[in-house]
């Protein structure tokens, strides 16, 4: 190996993007890995490892850097072949540029560094969207699952069906995938994008499993809600709840996004066989939803906004469930809190990274508990999604319910059952 080849290998193994010919990406990678296996020195040898193909569509080339750092985090637990795509669009003849990099980590307990790989492909020109799939699909490692991550959904003008993702790019990539990963927290048009997502699952690609990272952010909320009713004495309150209030965060500089709150309420309604009977959107992202149980009794759900600067916009800040059983009233509260009240160095509030559960039953002691919310970074959530690559029926049912609750214009009487069923 000459000095130039050694430098090239070091650049690659260190994780710095290395320019490669887009027509021979796989061949170049094979040669680099063959050299890296033995190492410039034996002590620097590494192991190439991959458990899946992950395609991620970046909104623009500025996103490459933050996405790369998230893929490095992801590689810590899920070494993979990550392919980042950028469609720069534009006019004229199309061009494609590609880089490759390795992301290595030391295994827990020692051993040779374990490395995944990242391929960045940037296309520009009039046919950029059309030529990207043809560049990407041959790069998919056979026998490994393919997950397609499409973090950003359009916020611009929507087509008549509420859909403006470029079909020349999206469709062939989705057809090559086993799993679609989206994030409804980043939907440009939350309500109509939610409707489109459900149609994608129900009608267009029922065989492709869909994960919404926003749904995974709800995991702790769902877990803690279920735990409240694990006690047989409190479980009797579950079908006797009369009012549920879900507050989600709005911030002045961020668009309204009720998706997380709606998915939570959709999940709870589905599990309890409640069906929405009337939806009354209020001003500024608030909604009042009347739910009906299978025997016809009613309960009222409020999806309300609340201001907070230490919680991400769109995240749930609080859930309050109220009910009565045998004449004894009870309130169950889950709230995001910053356990450490001390302001940060810049004077801002510390982030609210805990959830406090409060159980108050009339005439009994109040029970409180604080637990960590759990890591919510992109890499963590995608890692969770990769741990379960199959269909998530709980999500699919919650999505269906959320779509029904997401009406934003005028009072809607729901006079037919929600499709499907449990």
């Amino acid at each position: 190996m000459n000095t130039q080849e050694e430098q090239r290998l070091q650049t690659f193994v260190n994780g710095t993007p290395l320019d490669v010919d887009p027509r021979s990406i796989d061949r170049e990678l094979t040669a680099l890995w063959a050299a890296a296996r033995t190492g410039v020195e034996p002590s620097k040898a590494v192991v190439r490892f991959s458990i899946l193909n992950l395609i991620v569509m970046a909104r623009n080339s500025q996103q490459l850097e933050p996405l790369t750092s998230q893929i490095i985090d992801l590689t810590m637990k899920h070494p993979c072949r990550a392919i980042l795509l950028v469609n720069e669009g534009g006019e004229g003849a199309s061009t494609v540029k590609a880089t490759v990099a390795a992301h290595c980590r030391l295994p827990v307990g020692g051993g040779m560094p374990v490395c995944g790989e990242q391929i960045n492909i940037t296309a520009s020109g009039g046919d950029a969207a059309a030529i990207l799939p043809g560049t990407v699909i041959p790069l998919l490692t056979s026998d490994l699952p393919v997950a397609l991550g499409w973090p950003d959904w359009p916020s611009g003008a929507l087509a008549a069906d509420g859909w403006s993702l470029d079909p020349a790019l999206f469709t062939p990539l989705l057809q090559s995938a086993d799993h679609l990963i989206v994030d409804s927290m980043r939907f440009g048009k939350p309500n109509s994008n939610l409707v489109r997502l459900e149609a994608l699952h129900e009608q267009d690609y029922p065989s492709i499993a869909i994960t919404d990272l926003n749904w995974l952010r709800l995991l702790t909320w769902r877990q803690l809600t279920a735990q409240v009713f694990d006690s047989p004495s409190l479980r009797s309150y579950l079908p006797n709840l009369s009012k549920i209030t879900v507050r989600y965060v709005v911030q002045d500089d961020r668009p309204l996004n009720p998706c997380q709150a709606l998915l939570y309420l959709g999940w709870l309604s589905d599990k309890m066989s409640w069906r929405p009977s009337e939806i009354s959107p209020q001003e500024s992202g608030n909604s009042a939803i009347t739910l009906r149980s299978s025997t016809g009794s009613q309960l009222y759900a409020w999806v309300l906004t609340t201001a907070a600067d230490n919680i991400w916009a769109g995240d749930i800040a609080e859930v309050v469930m109220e009910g009565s059983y045998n004449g004894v009233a009870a309130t169950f509260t889950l709230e995001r809190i910053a356990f450490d009240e001390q302001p940060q160095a810049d004077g801002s509030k510390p982030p609210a990274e805990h959830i406090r559960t409060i159980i108050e039953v009339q005439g009994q002691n109040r029970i409180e508990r604080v637990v960590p919310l759990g890591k919510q970074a992109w890499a963590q959530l995608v890692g969770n999604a990769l741990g379960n690559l199959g269909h998530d029926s709980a999500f699919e049912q919650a999505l269906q319910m959320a779509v029904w609750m997401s009406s934003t214009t005028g009072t809607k009487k729901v006079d037919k059952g929600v499709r499907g069923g449990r």
Partner: protein
Amino acid sequence: MTTLNAAGLLEEQLASNPLWEGMRLQRTPEPCAMVIFGVTGDLAHRKLIPALYNLAVDRLLPPGFSIVGFGRRPYTDEQFRAEMEEAIKQFSRRPLEPGTWESILQGMHYVQGDFNDERAFETLASLLSDLDRERNTGGNRVFYLSTPPSTYEEIIANIGAAGIARQNWAGSGWTRIIIEKPFGTDLPTARHLNSKVHEVFDESQTYRIDHYLGKETVQNILVFRFANTIFEPIWNRRYVESVQITVAESLGVEERAGYYEGAGALRDMVQNHLMQQLALTAMEPPSDFEADAIRDEKVKIFRSIKPLDPREVAERVVRGQYGPGSSGGQQVPGYRQEPKVSPTSNTESFVAMKLFIENWRWQGVPFYLRTGKRLPVRSSEIAITFKPVPLMLFRDSGVTQLDRNILALQIQPDEGISMKFESKVPSTRMQIRSVNMDFRYNTAFGTQPADAYERLILDCMLGDSTLFTRADEVEAAWTIVTSILDGWKVLPPPQFPNYEAGSWGPREAHEMLSRDGFVWRRP
């Protein structure tokens, strides 16, 4: 018959919590209290309290969960809490997180008393009753015996006398007891202890813990065997030549001499850890993944191993004790020179044995078991050696010998699975060499597994006894081990020490295998 309540949810649906349906998460137990006897001891500090703390951080404990420490030291609740906080800071796999810890503190109490002090147990009963009311623990309790085995009987009897062992004693709820190893010192004492336990708790309430079963890699033996189709067809006497199970420790007896002197390697390691690994390796596929289905199959394996008579013990069991030597680049003393060890001790720090499982699957296949202290490395592995190819096809090409295929399941450290097979060396002539195909947990998953105690404590709270040993299982394992102990009683006393610290055990252990045409693997 099912009825509808006011809001229309079927009451039978309410028997379980419908919110857990489809949740891709570990279930959490109902609110409960855990009483730890011997809470000021080493196990509670190093393992139990850190395990409970980590379960809380992972949100796997229920709201209202309470810990009651029971010990002889005259602590207040505050002193107890402060000591447990130190334990977490020192031994937890995660740093102390104030929010979670403060929530745990709300339900943390201490009861001071001797294990034979009936009034202390009445105080305990009263406290548990208060917790039911104040923390909504619903009559659910786990008792954890983290005490010397000599105290088990009186603690169990006093739990019974205080009336807190009964299921549904408060109108609802469950009661379970976790008992640490060693469970007895031979078959008669194990039977006696079982009968004492059953005077107070029925078998479904009893969780005999062997922390080895909480290890991910031990659990993976069943997944490896029964979630893949390619191994089970060759997992039998037709293809397997021998099996070696090694649990090697590089440390000496350290501070456990008080216990170890009376136990030795056979009772301390073979009766539980090695026997469990043997059973998981050799058992038939269970009818389902329920606790009793799996334990039924393990018991069948133990019952298929005939107890050894003294002649067989002399031929097929080797015991050893380390003398002075070197370990980790340092001179180390022999077993008899260790603190609190008798200078004439005949306690074995090493055992190797050959067992046969007399059933259709394993007839004639030797299972070699080996464990010892002060061996060169700390390592546990199960190695399955396959029979040679029936015909030496490459003899005319100059290849005269082929190595056996070996499948090795590494339990610790460096957890993984490796397969040794023959491969052609690239050249113009026929040369064959063994190569290894390796799977490493830390490479594939990049995650630190939870401590075994976290898994086992959670399983007990959830009522899943799959990874705990059943009374008949313990007794069946003791039947084999007791036959060896009985054999040793009538055989000439051993000539100890008979292996150097830092070596792979006594010469006789190697000779036992070489007589069969094998050698011990070097893990």
